[in-house]
């Protein structure tokens, strides 16, 4: 079961987060998806809110992609350690596009039930993103 569930999460990153394939989103994510996010990225509740957050992300970063560095899985739970990369081509948090390549790390857990992602818990290195677009200092 964990191999199948890991494959579902890999597809989510590749097809939905990477390619913006919303047919795949409907296949892979339950309508009442529950998100447990973090401060900058928020916690979009439900598949529709998740879709909107991905649309917004692709408008800032059309070439957004995730490299999966490690996976860990047990039963319904799948964990991912990943590296996100994109080019700042659209407005992001009111910062005009810089054309800079951005990269940051993320850790995410997914609960997969009957072939669909029903919940996610994640932390992304959002401070790093803000530093790269000039919205946060390097030192505090």
């Amino acid at each position, binding site marked *: 079961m*964990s191999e199948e569930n890991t494959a579902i999460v890999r597809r989510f990153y590749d097809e939905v987060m990477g390619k913006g394939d919303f047919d795949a989103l409907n296949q892979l994510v339950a309508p009442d998806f529950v998100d*447990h996010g*973090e*401060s*900058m990225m928020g916690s979009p509740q439900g598949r529709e809110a998740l879709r909107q957050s991905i649309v917004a992300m692709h408008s800032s970063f059309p070439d957004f992609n995730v490299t999966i560095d*490690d996976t*860990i*899985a*047990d*039963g319904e*739970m799948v*964990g991912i*350690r990943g590296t996100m990369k994109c080019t700042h081509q659209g407005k992001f*948090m009111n910062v005009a596009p810089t054309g800079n390549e951005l990269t940051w*790390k*993320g*850790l*995410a*857990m997914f609960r997969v039930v009957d072939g669909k992602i029903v919940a996610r*818990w*994640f*932390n*992304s*290195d*959002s*401070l*790093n993103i*803000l*530093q790269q677009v000039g*919205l*946060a200092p390097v030192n*505090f």
Partner: protein
Amino acid sequence: MTTAANMDAMRRLFEGFSSPDVDFLRRTVDELMVPEFITHGDALFPLVHGREALKQAIPAFKAAFPDATATIQQIFAEGNKVMVRVETSGTHENEWMGAPGSHKKMTWTATSITRFNDDGKMAERWVIEDEVGLLTQLGVLSL
């Protein structure tokens, strides 16, 4: 070591973190981690070599948040790794990240993957904290 034993070790680490007794936390770190433990962190603490560096950071953090506790929201394991999502909360009593003590209660999350060695000791950890969340609550970052 079994995944059950490794998960128990993670729980003990967070119990140690949640204790007001700084020496207890230091002893817990020594029991559970190898001396050359490596932390792969995030923007504020990208890489920390060794458990001594972690222990050295304890007194300042506990002075800033004396009642800090960590609650495990999710934990699971496969092979020699354990993944955890925790919520830390504490009252900001003294200076932290440039913000003088505000006496406000603060909460932030973190996710980590910890690799255990064959003796059941923690060898390496990848962790990301909600630094934006904490810095915003501290008033030193505004978006």
